[in-house]
C-alpha cells in the first residue's frame, strides 16, 4: 500500500469516526493531528478504528507521540505490506 493510498484510507476512517467534520480534501501529511480536534476518548476510538481498518496494533503512547497526519501515515506504512 503506498502512502497516498494510506492517507486516503486514513481519511475514510477518520471521517467515519473520531473527527467526522474534518475537511479531508484539505488534509496533507503535514496537517497536525491536533487540528482534527480529537480528545482523549476520541483517541481511543481512533486507535481501534485504525487497528481494525489496517490490521495493525497501536499503543496509546505511540498514538500520542504522533503529531501530524504524515506521522500516522509513516507509522501505518511501516506496519503494512
Amino acid at each position, binding site marked *: 500500500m503506498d502512502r497516498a493510498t494510506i492517507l486516503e484510507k486514513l481519511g475514510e476512517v477518520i471521517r467515519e469516526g473520531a473527527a467526522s467534520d474534518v475537511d479531508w480534501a484539505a488534509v496533507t501529511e503535514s496537517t497536525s493531528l491536533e487540528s482534527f480536534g480529537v480528545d*482523549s476518548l476520541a483517541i481511543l476510538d481512533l486507535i*481501534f478504528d485504525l487497528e481494525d481498518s489496517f490490521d495493525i496494533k497501536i499503543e496509546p503512547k505511540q498514538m500520542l507521540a504522533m503529531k501530524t497526519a504524515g506521522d500516522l501515515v509513516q507509522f501505518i506504512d511501516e506496519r503494512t505490506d
Partner: protein
Amino acid sequence: MSTALKAIGVYGLLRALNLTWRYSESGREHLDACLSSDSPTVVAFFHGHTVALLQFMCRQGNGRWMSMCSKSADGDAMAWIEQRLGLEVIRGSSGSGGLEAIVEMIRFVRANPKIGPTLAVDGSRGPRGVVKGGVVSLAQRTGGTILPISASASRAHIFKRSWDQTMLPHPFARVEVRYGEPLPVPAKLSAEQFEAIRSSLESRLRQLESPDSLR
C-alpha cells in the same frame, strides 16, 4: 511489614469477614439476563463498594470476571488478593491518563468475551460518585452491556477519610447486592449519546445506592 505480608493479612481478613456476611440480592434478573447473553457484561460499581462486591461476584453461578491492577507494589498486592478471590487479573499501566489501561482491557475482553470486566467507575481517585467515560468506551468497543451494581450493609464501617468512603461491612452484617437495569452500548456513538449513557449510568448507580449505605 512487607507488601506481601500485608496482602496476606488483608486477604485473610476479607475471607474471614466474607464468611460471616449474609448476602441477599435484588434485581438478580438483570445479572441473569446479562450472563445468558452472548455479549460481554461490563460490571460497573462505585469504588467504595469494592470490598463488599468483589468476593460475592466471584461466587459460583455469578459469572466470570476480571479486573485490572496497576503495575506497582500496591498493584502487586491487589492483584494477588483479587486472584485469590477468584478474579482474572490483568496488569495495566496507568500511563497516558488511563488510556493505556482502557486499551488493555478492551483487548483482553475482545480476546476473552466470556470474562466480563469489573470497573470501579469513579476510580482511580474520584470524585466519588462521578462516573468516568472509560467504562462507556470499554462497552462500546467490546459490544458489551453495562450492568450497574451496588452494595449496602445493615452495619458497616465507612472510612470517612478515604476519597471513596470505603464501606467495610461489620462481621455478621446483612449485605444486599443490588443489580440495576443494564445499559446496552452501541458501537457507534455521537458525543451527545456517549454523555447520555455516562450520565444515565451515574444516575442508576446513585439510585441503587441507599442514602448512606447503612440501614
